[in-house]
């Protein structure tokens, strides 16, 4: 019980600090559930980044260093709440900023049936995902060797070892040290706070992030569809039921988290284009950093695509503010990138630098996307919706931007797996390609939602 309460306190403090950061960048439109959900993720990113900075500065993972974060962070948040008021904080509007019953009345009987079925399926997956988190042992190899072992090493060793000759400690956290630190330092810090390494509590972050994805999709789809509960549920359900996502919601891989940060970065960048509000760009930048600080794919596929798209449209629209998210992500990632350069940490530690087209690339992509069981029928839906809806929607600025960004991600995925040594190490043997496609799928579903709701999008 004490363990659970300590864990709960950690989550409350982290969310509180995240909401404080949102207040600092004046994002608080309402003190609503959206702010709480993304506040939780922002708090987690801030906490992980702080622990990372402490460790690379030679400091230790200690009660003092972790305590300082919460004392200063909570103090700052309380000050901001005191200064700007806590209107509606924890009020009814906080949890549901709209009335679902209004939309429900307008829905047909068939659609009501489908909505109920989708709701049941989502709850079913969440319930069993939670069961696996607290009952299943660490099983998938990468979850152990790439992710959790580094967090557990740091939790026990308290310091980051910068000397590869030192065999008593793990070099840069040990094992696959080429990977970024978001999940590693977050879980090490959480374990220190709760006083032990607990498999379930260490991994529940993945599950909570999955719930946040569902919440944000629901809220955004509701906004885009102007309260159409059926359309809202359709796209929320599509994002929540990507087949591989269920397995990633209870295990310690970074792919789903990277994909969620990616779609959040895109959502708030699109919100900026629609509403022209600076704070959305800062938020987009924080989530873009989250994606790059979680997995190397975040840097290679996501950061490069969003940055290139932002540069193209900044020139076309003469709107230089579009470069803000990439600038924020670049600045925050600088310490890790300097470390990467200093220790010559490769982006893909198992692949060599050879470049050249590998035959069978198209055939393998075709099989894994249209025949196997990890994509549902997404890769049939994407071209159909593009053909049917894109021509009506392409004049919208946000559609143009998202289309180019996602097209570039797609091209980079094809290039990475078809033209580099990843073909052998991650593609032909199916080690990474489907996880990367899952990472991509959340943003694609968001784009499909935008396309089918084009007429409703308010400027």
């Amino acid at each position, binding site marked *: 019980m004490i363990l659970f309460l300590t864990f709960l306190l950690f989550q409350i403090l982290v969310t509180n600090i995240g909401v404080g950061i949102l207040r600092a960048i004046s994002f608080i439109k309402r003190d609503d559930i959206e702010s709480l959900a993304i506040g939780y993720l922002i708090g987690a990113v801030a906490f992980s980044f702080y622990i990372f900075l402490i460790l690379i500065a030679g400091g230790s993972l200690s009660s003092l260093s972790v305590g300082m974060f919460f004392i200063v962070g909570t103090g700052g948040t309380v000050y901001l709440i005191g200064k700007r008021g806590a209107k509606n904080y924890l009020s009814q509007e906080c949890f549901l900023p709209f009335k679902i019953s209004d939309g429900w009345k307008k829905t*047909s009987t*068939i*659609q009501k049936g*489908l909505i109920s*079925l*989708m709701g049941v*399926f989502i709850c*079913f*997956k969440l319930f*069993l995902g939670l*069961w*696996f988190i607290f*009952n*299943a*042992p*660490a*099983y*998938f*190899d*990468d979850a*152990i*060797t790439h992710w*959790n*072992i580094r967090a*557990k*090493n740091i939790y*026990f*060793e308290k310091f980051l070892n910068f000397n590869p000759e030192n065999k008593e400690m793990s070099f840069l956290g040990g094992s696959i040290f080429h990977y970024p630190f978001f999940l590693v330092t977050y879980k090490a810090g959480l374990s220190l706070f709760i006083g032990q*390494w607990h498999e379930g509590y260490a991994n529940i972050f993945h599950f909570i992030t999955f719930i946040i994805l569902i919440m944000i999709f629901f809220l955004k789809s509701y906004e885009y569809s102007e309260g159409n509960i*059926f359309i809202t549920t*359709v796209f929320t*359900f*599509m994002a929540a*039921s990507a*087949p*591989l996502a*269920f*397995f*990633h919601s209870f*295990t310690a891989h970074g792919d789903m988290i990277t994909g969620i940060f990616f779609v959040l970065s895109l959502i708030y960048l699109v919100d900026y284009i629609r509403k022209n509000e600076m704070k959305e760009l800062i938020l987009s930048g924080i989530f873009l950093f989250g994606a790059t600080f979680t997995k190397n794919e975040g840097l290679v596929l996501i950061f490069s695509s969003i940055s290139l798209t932002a540069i193209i449209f900044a020139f076309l629209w003469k709107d230089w503010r579009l470069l803000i998210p990439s600038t924020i992500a670049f600045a925050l990632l600088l310490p890790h990138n300097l470390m990467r350069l200093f220790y010559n940490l490769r982006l893909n530690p198992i692949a060599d630098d050879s470049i050249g087209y590998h035959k069978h690339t198209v055939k393998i992509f075709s099989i*894994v996307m*249209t*025949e*196997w*069981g*990890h*994509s*549902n*029928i997404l*890769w*049939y*839906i994407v071209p*159909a919706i593009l053909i*049917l809806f894109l021509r009506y929607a392409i004049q919208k600025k946000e559609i143009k931007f998202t289309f180019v960004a996602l097209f570039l991600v797609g091209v980079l995925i094809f290039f990475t797996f078809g033209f580099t040594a990843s073909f052998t190490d991650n593609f032909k043997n*199916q*080690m*990474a390609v*489907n*996880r990367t496609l899952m990472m991509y799928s959340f943003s694609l579903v968001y784009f499909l939602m935008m396309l*089918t709701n084009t007429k409703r999008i308010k400027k």
Partner: protein
Amino acid sequence: MDAIFSQLSAEFRKFMEPELIRPWTINLLYGHKLFGIAFSQILGWGFILGVLIYLIFPRQRRLQFFLTMMISFWLIFDLRLNYDIYKNYLTAKAELQKGIYFTIEDFYPFLDYINEKIAIAPVNKIYYVGQHWPYENILQYYLLPHKVVGNIREADYLVLYRFPFHIEGDRKIVSEKGVICEQCEWIGMFRPGCNLFKVNKIS
């Protein structure tokens, strides 16, 4: 008629065989086939056919029809997937009571046993002999803060997992490939094949 019915029944049974969790499940799901055709392909082409019908549908209700049709195909696929997820849950629940988790047999309770026998402080060094993948990685992870080392001379403890050996003399552990440990004191056996030894340092 009976032959057709039994063939259909066999095909359906094969289709309903659950895809259980395996070490690669986190990377891919093979999915299922009906009459040799991938289920996602059947639903995918069904959806494409639905799109063609959509094009002749009255314009006013087009979007609603399109989304209802699209999500119906998606739901059918998800229903089949949920059946697999449920079967995975039932399998895991039943097996975990016996200390088994899908492809890993009795290794997790053996690790709990080792953790009970070895005090958490000071940090000990462990030498592992047994099947390498994925057991050594799991052992390394679960026994932290104790470290797994690659040389018996550095080790404080020896873990032997399903590896044939015999004891020569008093404390010499030997396998077909040669001597594993010159001076090892047997601490206990969790189950046949799951042995833990204390390594006595030879000065």
